[in-house]
């Protein structure tokens, strides 16, 4: 039995669709962010898998994933700062309760 490219792509697909499910069903903003991280993680995994199997001589997929991880860290930090600010002003973090903008 060989571990071909499909063996790695199928868990990645499942990770992505679980992320989609969580992003649609959850109301809590932090839980939505967790689902978003799952989707991002599966995209990163896909870059690396395609790099390894289709272009084993280069490392562009790996570099792209490296930068994607750095940008994901930045994005999560700003999102969490926003969520904490929203919690201060309305007392919870449900997306259904955020109806008004400041201006």
């Amino acid at each position, binding site marked *: 039995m060989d571990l071909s490219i499909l063996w790695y792509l199928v*868990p990645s697909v499942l990770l992505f669709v679980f992320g989609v499910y969580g992003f649609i069903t959850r109301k809590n903003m*932090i839980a939505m962010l967790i689902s978003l991280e799952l989707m991002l993680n599966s995209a990163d995994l896909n870059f690396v898998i395609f790099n390894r199997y289709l272009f084993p001589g280069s490392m562009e997929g790996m570099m792209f994933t490296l930068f994607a991880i750095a940008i994901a860290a930045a994005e999560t930090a700003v999102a969490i700062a926003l969520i904490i600010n929203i919690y201060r002003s309305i007392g919870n973090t449900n997306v259904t309760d955020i109806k008004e903008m400041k201006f």
Partner: protein
Amino acid sequence: MDSVGNIILYFVVAIVMVVSAFLAVTTTKILRAATYLLFSLLCTAVFYFQLGYQFLGAVQIAVYAGGIMVLFVFAIILTHKPNEKSAPLLPHRQITGIAASVAGAGLLLFALFKMPLVKGISLAEALSNDSAQITMSDIGHALVGSEKFQYLLPFEAVSVLLLACIIGGVVIARKQ
């Protein structure tokens, strides 16, 4: 032909990764969802190691499993009471979510199994390619060089982005 150990490792890691991802989006306690996400990220790091990208696996553990998870736990503790359960799901949202994810999974898996591109080599063959072994000096040269397939400009851009996001995070989250 791949070794039996690699195949067993693959199955263990893949099952843990998919099950913990499923639990992360279905559990009612938010701190548990974060913990399941951590397991899923660690299993992804094991996949990176198995595919021969040791540096990337280390970055995944250090930045994702270390940094981002600490941020998540910090935010959860700041914004939730202990043992608080999430509100029950609305049925129409649940139906939308299941429909979207089942349709997406069907479409993606159909595309995967129909695609002629993916019929091919095993992991051992992919790893046995002469230039498949990436050394630390290759990564270092690629990160700070400015020629073709080298990434000095994105590297510097990411450092400016991180600085901007530190300042933005402090400005947004501080008390007025």
